[in-house]
């Protein structure tokens, strides 16, 4: 894990420096004295190798210094205040997708080839294929600007959460519903289900008591990578809904050549993703019955 992080950090460091312009590039000329002072202040007047070593030493201590664009803010503080927002958005979206996606999938499977099944599968197909930068503005247009029911953006009141969560969950909801349906259909064909039906159990017991546990497995394996992706913040949604999350920072930091902020966020993302992958692997081993038997 450490070598991977080092490679990522090094690549990011040098790629950022290779990009034209710098953090103090501006449309207006900066007085020479001010520019020198700024470069000195951030150690950008030192040779690149020295800057790199200093960056590595500080990165080990998780100290990325102040952001170049927002010098009053430490990179660490920016990450610590904006990540919880992305996390909250992601968790709500995940919760909503599961709460709606799983029942839809189960119902569709238990009523295979009925109107409900066709309807559900057609709408989830739409959910998978409509990108969130189209869905978000459409929802805003309907619920905020035409009906005046919900706020069109921001992240202050509970009502503010609804539209971004809906937008972010659409694709996950659709996937989960389809995966649940597929898994359940597979399971419902099994012999032990026929047995359960034969002994006269009500259909609800058959589905929830017997088929559900096995049928939901594809969703569980999908959840691992999905969780990582969903809680890391969606750049598009944070931008459209003006949500103060981490995704928005990453994009603007790259455009601003905010070297320290970019490095801080990239290393944080990379580390977080690795930890999550590790957790998913552990969870797999724990959930998969075959592993348990071995």
């Amino acid at each position, binding site marked *: 894990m450490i070598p991977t992080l080092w490679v990522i950090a090094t690549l990011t460091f040098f790629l950022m420096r290779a990009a034209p312009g710098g953090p103090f590039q501006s449309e207006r000329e900066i007085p020479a004295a001010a520019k020198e*002072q700024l470069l000195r202040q951030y150690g950008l007047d030192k040779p690149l190798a020295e800057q790199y070593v200093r960056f590595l030493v500080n990165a080990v201590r998780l100290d990325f210094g102040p952001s170049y664009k927002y010098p009053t803010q430490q990179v660490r503080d920016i990450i610590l*205040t904006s990540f919880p927002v992305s996390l909250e958005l992601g968790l709500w979206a995940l919760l909503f997708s599961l709460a709606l996606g799983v029942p839809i999938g189960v119902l569709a499977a238990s009523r295979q080839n009925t109107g409900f099944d066709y309807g*559900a599968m057609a709408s989830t197909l739409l959910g998978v294929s409509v990108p969130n930068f189209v*869905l978000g503005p459409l929802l805003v247009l309907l619920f905020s600007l*035409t009906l005046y029911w919900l706020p069109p953006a921001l992240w202050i009141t509970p009502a503010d959460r609804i539209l971004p969560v809906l937008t972010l969950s659409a694709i996950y909801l659709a996937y989960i519903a389809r995966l649940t349906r597929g898994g359940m259909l597979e399971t419902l064909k099994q012999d032990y289900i026929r047995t359960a039906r034969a002994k006269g159990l009500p259909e609800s017991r058959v589905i929830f008591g017997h088929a559900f546990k096995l049928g939901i497995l594809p969703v569980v394996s999908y959840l691992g990578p999905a969780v990582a992706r969903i809680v890391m913040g969606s750049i598009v949604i944070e931008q459209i809904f003006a949500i*103060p999350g981490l995704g*928005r920072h990453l994009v603007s930091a790259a455009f601003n050549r905010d070297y320290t902020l970019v490095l801080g966020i990239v290393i944080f993302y990379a580390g977080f993703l690795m930890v999550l992958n590790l957790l998913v692997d552990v969870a797999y081993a724990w959930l998969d019955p075959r592993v348990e038997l071995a």
Partner: protein
Amino acid sequence: MNAPDKNRAQRFWLIAVLIAFELGLVVVACVGRRANTPGPASAKDYFGNVAPPRGQVFTFNNGAEPEHLDPAVMSGQPDGRVARLVFEGLVSSDPKTLAATPGQAYRWDLSDDRKTYTFHLRPGLQWADGQALTAQDFVWSWRRVLSPATGSRYANFLYPIKNAEAFNRGELADSSQVGVAAPDDSTFVVTLENPTAYFLEIAAFYTALPTPRHLVEKLGSNWESAHNLMGNGPFRIVEWRQKDRFVFVPNDRYWDRANVRLTKIVALPIEEVSTSTNLYKAGVLDWNPSGYVPKQVIPFIQKFKDFSGGPFHAVYFYSMVVTRKPFDNVWVRRALNYAIDREAIAKYVLKGTVRAWGNITPAGYTGYDAPAPLRYDPVQARECLAKAGYPGGKGFPKIEILFNTSEDNRRIAEAVQAMWKRELNLSVTLTNQEWASFQAATTARQYDVARRSWIGDYMDPNTFLDMWQTGNGNNRTGWGDPRYDALLRGATREPDTARRLAMLSQAEAILLADGPEIPIYHYTESSLIKPYVRGIYSTMLDVHPLTHVWIDHGGKDGDAVAAAPRAAPEAAPQAEGRP
């Protein structure tokens, strides 16, 4: 409820949700065309919801997250808007005309040679924490801006002050030689290098705002973090969450507290222009400032009464690097200028949202007689090109237009490309770069023709002409002309306004005839202000003092009490302005 019923209920609910969720999209597509349908509490003449907020709470989009809160080092409009709420300079600006009005100084005198300003401060001025504010604070603050160690990006705003430039460049070590002094606690004297007609505008600019010495010296650069920040202006910050919001409440120690009616200001940092306009339509924002209305929707929105679209003090132009071939030839530059149909660009490419413009300086200067604008003349263009040695475009090298990535920039570049092809038979390629790369390329003069723009800092042609002097850092074309430089230097020293403006006009004529610039359009302001907001007006500089803004509830909610005539400043005689 038995099982089948439960299933049915569940099924019904699911279907209902699905219909709302997915078929809703279809509905949206149909109503999309009627998106202007007013909200429940709105009149047809306005864009969206016009129900005023409860109480005197004002919410606006500040555009982006401010980089600095320290006025001495800041350099952006969002930063400036926050600074103008929290701090107040010697003079303030009239919200309608932006003329200097009394601020921390209630009166000022100008010497006969127009080089010495004496500001008389109000008695009993205080910082928001109760510390006394004196003329010494201004001396210290302005020296701090100019000190090379501060690294102020806008230090050059104070260069009209005697010895300021030398001190800022490090050529002069003694800060006491800079022309600022405080003979006593309530008198601040500024000595200028030359008579500077626009000096009061500079004094009102955010770089010239005072900073609290007691905090800066105690906390170092930490003083500008939001919870330490302390000003002398009408408001103070009570809450700041990055990329989320600023909340301001009135500063009870402000001298004109009695006339500050808002009880709370919320400033949101929204960069996305459609999001900002959506929030305005939904009634969350009371003010969507210029630049945050999507350009594509302006033709549709501008018919509403709450849209404001006056001229803005900025010009969009192309510049050419004159040290490169073929742009070193003045006839080539003229040919390229004559071949551009600005009217067509403004009318068809930009749908009439801007004004075609053939001058270097924008409109609106009193007493300034601008030279005749460049005009579209294809015949002349072809003649110029022949004179340059490329008759019919023969032998003309392939040239490139560089612009920063944006839909409008691309469409304009395409139009120009087509015009140069049609009129002059030139082959032109287009290249776009994202902002920082683009700035790096233009600064290094690594381009043929580049899209540029300039926003004036004060209402004087000098702010547009100064940058074209030989070697100026904002020139970025390698162009220079001793006649031009002499005229600008002469104008700076000239105390007579009419003669000074005449010299500037001559300079502009030289620039139009020989210069490296191809003016294209004059910017317009495009903002949205709710009808119940009082005290915000369209201004050329897009500067909007919010000190006396208030929410009009139509006589309800205690407005009548608040609307009592403004009290005269205590113990302070009326302002005189210039003698």
